[in-house]
């Protein structure tokens, strides 16, 4: 698989510091992602991985204390969440939120309408994506994420990603709560989006198994709120073999045995 080296769009994070409930979590993160690139951000529980993705999307309760985030030079941090999404950011959540009575279809159409796209395009796009991500079409009319299984939720997130076609996607522990088939479907669709649609990806994960499908260009290790190491895919292999011990943490980077990863606490 070849990807364009360096793309049309740039998401740049510089010196980002953030706190949650007064507690400092991110202590200066620098990261630059271009269109078509896949970056993996790995790290032990509590290192700040999820905080990074939520801060980029502007989740209430996450306070930026210093630093900047720009998308093609625009100040992302000055925008409310919905404008960040319209500007081209997407957050695939570890625990997608249940929204009773609101269908996936309605959300996608309202998002299109707000972004000046024709909401009528949603139906065709959804139809063409349903099979690619292995999403049960019967769930389209149902309330968002309500009574979805773990796999259905992540397939739904991936479907939304594919239909909304953001420029950059943060995928927060997209591999948690997934069986092998769902993990493969989700990772393949994201990899295709990166390879063929120019999607820039920040894949946040504790374990390396996601990365065997979603081959990252760059791997970053986040520890105690800072990126402490960056490298090519070989860095993930190193973590697979040695765990996070080299960064002062004895957590393995591989789930015990063959059991799927337990829902993380990060």
């Amino acid at each position, binding site marked *: 698989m070849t990807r364009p080296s360096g793309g049309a769009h740039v998401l740049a994070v510089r010196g980002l510091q953030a706190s949650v409930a007064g507690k400092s979590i991110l202590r200066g993160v620098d990261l630059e992602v271009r269109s078509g690139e896949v970056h993996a951000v790995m790290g032990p529980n509590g290192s700040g991985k999820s905080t990074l993705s939520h801060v980029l*999307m*502007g*989740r*209430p309760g996450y306070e930026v204390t210093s630093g900047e985030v720009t998308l093609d030079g625009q100040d992302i941090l000055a925008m*409310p*969440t*919905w404008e960040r*999404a*319209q500007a081209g950011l*997407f*957050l695939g*959540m570890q625990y*997608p*939120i*249940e*929204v*009773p*009575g*609101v269908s996936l279809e*309605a*959300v*996608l159409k*309202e*998002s299109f*309408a*707000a*972004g000046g796209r024709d909401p009528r395009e949603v139906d065709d796009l959804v139809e063409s994506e349903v099979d690619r991500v292995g999403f049960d079409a019967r769930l389209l009319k149902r*309330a*968002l994420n309500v009574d979805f299984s773990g796999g259905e939720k992540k397939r739904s997130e991936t479907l*939304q990603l594919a239909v*909304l076609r953001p420029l950059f996607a943060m995928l927060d522990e997209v591999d948690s709560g997934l069986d092998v088939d769902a993990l493969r479907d989700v990772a393949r669709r994201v990899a295709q989006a990166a390879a063929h649609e120019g999607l820039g990806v920040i894949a946040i994960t504790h374990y390396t198994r996601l990365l065997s499908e979603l081959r990252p260009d760059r791997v970053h290790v986040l520890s105690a709120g800072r990126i402490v190491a960056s490298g090519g895919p070989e860095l993930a292999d190193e973590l697979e073999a040695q765990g996070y011990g080299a960064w002062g943490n004895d957590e393995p980077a591989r789930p015990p045995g063959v059991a799927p990863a337990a829902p993380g606490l990060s």
Partner: protein
Amino acid sequence: MKLPTSSLEEWRYSRIDSLDLDRFEPAGPDTRPGGPHLAGSVPLVEAARLSAAEVTAVETVDGRLSVLAPAAGSGVEVTVLSQTSEQPQVEWSGGGLDAFGTANEAFSVDPILIEVTSSDRPATVVVAHHCLSDGLVSFPRVTVRTAPGANLTLIEVLSGDAACLVVPVVDLDVAVNARVVYLGVQALGGRAWQIASQSSRVATGASLTSGAVALGGDYARVLTSSSLTGVGASSRLAAMYFASGSEMHDFRTVQDHKARKTFSDLLYKGVVANKASSVYSGLIRVEKGAKGTKAFQTNRNLVLHEGARAESVPNLEIEENDVSCSHASAIGPVSEDERFYLHSRGVPPQVADRLISVGFLTEVLEQLPLGALASHVEAALSEKLATAEAAEAAEAAGSDRQFTAEPGREELT
């Protein structure tokens, strides 16, 4: 007429103290406007009339009969009681009539009696539409009597943008093994006062489904009192309400179990926006002898804006053992997590709140026997929500301007 006051428990939190009867006068014999009021001119009524192949249509204007169009051979007889000598005895389950129910009995001009005489046919559908005019008080009254095993759907629509006082009464008698579906749609404007009573008695093996949709009204109150009088009788009561601006919705319910193995389930959900308010007060009563009763009551309220207010008062009164009863009530703002999720998909805040609010009410919409009315109710709801959000945004912008116009900050205006 001596008015109750809000010091009475039944009128606690209500707006009864600000009712000014002098604002309204009774409709005279010659106030019989036609034209725009005629059935069919209101899309909701039109949809209701199209809900079945054969529909009996009744329309009143300010409590006076204006249209009576019975469907031929439908097994339903509609009588205007002012035109006959017969007066059916109305027995009330909720501890007697309140002052407004009594007034309705005294002042109703053209009380309507609906009798279903046949038991071996599919549901007979009756649509009753009450139109209201400015400055008038009216007392529409609909009484339903069923033969054993009969099957009736009654859709009642209150519509109009008038500044009026309407005191409607519906009395439903559900005979042995009969099945009655009642749907009340209140689509009044923001200047109307409504003080409604609905009573029902459900006999052995019979079932009642009673739904209410409240979309408007300066003050709109409905007292619903459902008695389960025969073994195995069941009732399902559901309501959805949305008050915005300075409107108030006020629901009082009684689920009265008088016989063995009776079942009742109630689900009322409401949204309050802007400076609107709502009251829900519900009682489950299980009388001595009603062993094996199952009774449930759920009231949930979504408070969309800071200035809005909801009250929820559940009550249980159980005089028998071997019963299963529960009640749940909740009042809360829109979930920040749900909001964030929709925002993160690119949905703007006002639209997200509208989706979440309609979604909140969807659980009730799905239970209501709306049929062809569903899309109209949803559209009316969405439109009203959009208006409420726009008003709230304008209000917020206005107060920002005030804030920035404070001394020393003029340069920011």
